[in-house]
């Protein structure tokens, strides 16, 4: 079923003010309810290769898998198809990047962070690896939905440092998980309900390192009527604050409900909408 009437998606990606090239990659398909963002790392252009492989492979493979079976249907073991697909396709993308890194010296050590959001049946399944984030703006409340897989987050969790100290920490850039750096990877996969009016933000650390959460929230609230402008404004704010890293965003607005069409009459109703 086509979700483009229910979901509005836009994206922007920019090299920033310092870097010569952009190692971030974004992909979205509003009809399928899919948004992907990856922040590559590795020497020369290897970071771009890793993030580009991740978004391209996942974008096409998840689409294929959902054509065979809808994401909301459980498999024999009771696991949602969306989860099964995310696990298997992320694992395959990991293997593909890892093998490219192993076989080609110029790609040695490359890897990428990943955040994937799948929208179906009035819900969202999020998979993430590393420090690219997903935020939600609901009503006036803006919060991070994902928790970074980073040294800093682990230090906060263990009580070694406070969130305030973390802002000034010197090791913001150390991730503890990444796609393509080891033979296997464990994505964190979670489900959330969605509500009409919600705005979701997928972003690379180039945004949240440069722009305070309050400022991001204010921008999304003020410009919620114009998602394109909101995305442009977020990139601009990051660049105006120094733009030291690549910065990428995908914005998703839930325009209206999108229940799965489980029966013939529900499908008919969808058809008339």
């Amino acid at each position, binding site marked *: 079923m086509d979700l483009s009437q229910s979901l509005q998606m836009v994206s922007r990606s920019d090299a920033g003010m310092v870097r010569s090239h952009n190692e971030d990659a974004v992909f979205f398909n509003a009809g399928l309810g899919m948004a992907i963002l990856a922040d590559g790392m590795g020497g020369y252009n290897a970071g771009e290769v890793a993030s580009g492989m991740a978004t391209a492979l996942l974008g096409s493979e998840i689409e294929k898998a959902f054509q065979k079976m809808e994401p909301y249907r459980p498999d024999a073991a009771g696991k949602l198809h969306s989860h099964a697909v995310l696990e298997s396709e992320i694992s395959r993308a990991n293997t593909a990047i890892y093998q490219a890194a192993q076989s080609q010296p110029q790609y040695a050590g490359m890897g990428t962070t990943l955040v994937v959001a799948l929208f179906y049946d009035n819900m969202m399944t999020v998979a993430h690896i590393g420090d690219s984030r997903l935020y939600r703006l609901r009503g006036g409340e803006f919060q991070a939905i994902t928790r970074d897989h980073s*040294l800093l987050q*682990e230090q906060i969790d263990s009580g070694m440092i406070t969130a305030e100290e973390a802002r000034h920490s010197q090791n913001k*850039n*150390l991730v*503890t998980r990444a796609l393509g750096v080891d033979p296997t990877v464990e994505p964190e996969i979670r489900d959330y309900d969605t509500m009409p009016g919600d705005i979701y933000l997928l972003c690379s650390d180039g945004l949240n390192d440069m722009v305070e959460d309050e400022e991001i929230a204010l921008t999304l609230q*003020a*410009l919620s009527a*114009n998602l394109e402008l909101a995305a442009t404004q977020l990139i601009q704010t990051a660049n105006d604050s120094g733009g*030291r890293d690549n910065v990428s965003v995908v914005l998703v607005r839930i325009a209206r409900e999108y229940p799965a069409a489980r029966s013939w009459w529900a499908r008919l109703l969808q058809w008339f909408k």
Partner: protein
Amino acid sequence: MSAKLILSMDGLVLKEIPLTKERTTIGRKPHNDIQIDNLAISGEHSVIVTILNDSFLEDLNSTNGTYVNGQPIKKHFLQNNDVVELGKYKLKYINETPTQTTAADFEKTMVLRPDLMKKTAEQTAAKSAAMSDTQIGMKALDTHAGMAPQPAAAAPAPATPPPAQPTGAIQILVGANAGKELELTKNLTTLGKPGVQVAVITRRPHGYFITHVEGANFPVVNGTTLDAHPRELKDHDVIELAGVKMEFFLKG
């Protein structure tokens, strides 16, 4: 291709030394990787730490000092063709890999392998005490190779301070609210009626800009209707929006 040093004295090339080790020590005593048997050279004179494609030179409190391109250094990030001088000896640093890592790269995201986690956490604690701002993480280097978290020591640069810029404000010119003033102290200020016509004024380092947000009608500035692009606001520009006329001005 790995970097190398060319050792010479009085213009005479003595030897070529590839920088293959993580630590290459230079000094008079025989245990150094590069031994220079000359009394002007300290026993342990200096060390070169090489990570991936980058090399850092550190003077080990030598008596006569370490010079790079004629300048005395304590720590130095070696660039292709740098000439390191120790007494009468010269070491030319050659690294022809096209793009050397620049300072900005130290903020790049790096992967921290779980097996290195524990060590790193300890080092981070030690490091934050030992290191002041932008020193490269020399002290943390000796314990592990490869995808290690050295670049962490690059201090996060402070956000660019906003240059002194006069505060902008708008004043309503006509109607019941005529004379009312609104200071534009936030980075974003929206104006208009949601659902009807909204514009946003953004404060940027180099000035104020107005952009159309929503509604069929676009804002009018000095009699000209805007398109979808931002327009910079100048002192005393007149804005018409959702039937309200207002003036933008800069406060002294």
